[in-house]
């Protein structure tokens, strides 16, 4: 006679250290094995899209900082790119380089935290996270030097950046870039061969290539599944076509591959930074002549960038007034989290934490 069983429901979150923010997972369990996962979101919803409709184009920029607050300058950039497309504004050369430098610094800052927190989820408590945090602090210092902020930078402007970098910035950046390869190498050595880490991540939470494309995943989640798709290469924005770098991809699409893609991406970011430091013009305007209240012609524009977490897009509609008619934010984390059920079903609760950590989501951007 079969034993009568019934599913068991577990609420993971909204306040739980492993959910990286206020995020709830309703997990259906059979014993310890996951049968279904349902993400429940909206705890951090601030209505940024609605707020944007009552502000001028420039006033929207600080709102975009609140999306992906781990790498907030990239949000500024994506928004500014779409407004520039809409209004037909050309960005000066030096500003383009500053934008690239800061987007790559942000990518490093994001991956530091993503990998550190991921290892924390794997059970390597604190040490790997704090190592990463130490290096991330240097990037935050560079940003503070430039715009006085440490978390929500509000640095990019439509047509350029808000201010030029101070004199001491370039030497500090050069020192940082010179130190980075050694640090990444050390970190790799520390983690890559760790037996416990490999046992917990290799083959866990596999996302097949076809599924990744079908759900519209992007960023390291997509590339981890072996799809060579990076907007910096496939649809270059800003001045990315001038830089020589590679797009790392994974093979299997498991948690390890996503970690490994991020770690190699950090090396590529350092490469881009090295080239940008050499190429950047020493002097020049850093902002196009854009009035404070400008009225782009009626129409629509879509600008997207390869944010650290994936494809971040802004769809901006103008009706010819000083405020945007509609701003739609397309965040990578929202779509990547769709893949969670595919990766986690069939694994145990302890693996769910790792799988979720390997997606690297930030709730500011999911809930908007």
């Amino acid at each position, binding site marked *: 006679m079969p034993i009568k069983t019934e599913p068991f429901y577990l609420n993971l979150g909204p306040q739980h250290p492993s959910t990286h923010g206020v995020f709830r997972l309703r997990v259906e369990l059979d014993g310890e094995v996951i049968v279904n996962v349902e993400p429940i*979101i909206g705890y951090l*919803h601030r209505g940024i899209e609605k707020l944007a409709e009552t502000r001028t184009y420039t006033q929207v920029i600080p709102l975009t900082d609140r999306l992906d607050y781990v790498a907030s300058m990239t949000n500024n950039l994506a928004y500014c790119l779409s407004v520039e497309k809409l209004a037909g504004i050309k960005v000066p050369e030096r500003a383009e380089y500053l934008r690239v430098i800061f987007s790559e610094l942000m990518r490093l800052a994001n991956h530091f935290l993503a990998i550190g927190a991921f290892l924390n989820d794997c059970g390597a408590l604190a040490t790997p996270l704090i190592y990463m945090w130490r290096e991330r602090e240097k990037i935050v210092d560079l940003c503070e030097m430039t715009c006085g902020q440490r978390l929500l930078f509000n640095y990019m402007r439509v047509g350029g950046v808000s201010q030029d970098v101070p004199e001491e910035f370039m030497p500090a950046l050069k020192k940082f870039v010179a130190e980075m390869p050694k640090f990444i190498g050390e970190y790799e050595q520390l983690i890559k061969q760790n037996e416990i880490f490999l046992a917990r991540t290799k083959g866990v939470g596999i996302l097949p290539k076809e599924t990744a494309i*079908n759900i*519209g995943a992007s960023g390291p989640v997509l590339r981890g599944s072996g799809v060579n798709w990076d907007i910096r290469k*496939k649809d270059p924005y800003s001045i990315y076509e001038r830089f020589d770098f590679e797009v790392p991809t994974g093979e299997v699409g498991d948690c390890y591959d996503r970690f490994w893609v991020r770690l190699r991406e950090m090396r590529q970011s350092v490469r881009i930074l090295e080239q940008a430091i050499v190429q950047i013009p020493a002097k020049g305007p850093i902002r196009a002549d854009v009035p404070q209240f400008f009225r782009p012609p009626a129409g629509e524009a*879509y600008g997207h960038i390869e944010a650290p977490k994936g*494809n971040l897009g802004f*769809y901006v509609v103008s009706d010819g007034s000083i405020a945007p008619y509609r701003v739609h934010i397309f965040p990578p984390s929202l779509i990547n989290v769709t893949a969670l059920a595919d990766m986690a079903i069939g694994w145990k609760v302890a693996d769910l934490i790792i799988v979720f950590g390997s997606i690297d989501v930030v709730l500011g951007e999911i809930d908007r």
Partner: protein
Amino acid sequence: MTVVTSGEDLAKKIAEAIPGSVISSDKTSVMVDAAKLAQVAEFLKNTPGLDFNYLNFATAVDYIDYFELVYRLLSMEHNHSLVLKTRCYDRENPTVPSIVSLWRGAYFQEREMFDMFGIKFEGHPDLRRLLTWEGFKGYPLRRDYL
């Protein structure tokens, strides 16, 4: 560089395959009849040479007279993109076919549109509010919501 497919050329192909579906087209986008959206989407996804296998984003805009739904499709194989649009004139009970069965990435995005605009997607597996809570009154991103 992602090539933006000419909407005019594509409109001809779509009109041939699914007569009466195309309403208008311009250089970058194709406007289709809301009732035939799912058919057109399937055609775009499965026709060799087009292969729009990746849904970039889906959203809606409230133009007060009508809702405009915007889908940006991408083909990873050919690296070309297209903006597919459709309009929904009914404000009380706007209904559009769902495309979740073709691109699962639309799952959360359609739920979000339902939440924010009150647009109903026929065929969506689980159409509920996404960002606001159950029992929330009104649709925040409509222009007449204050």
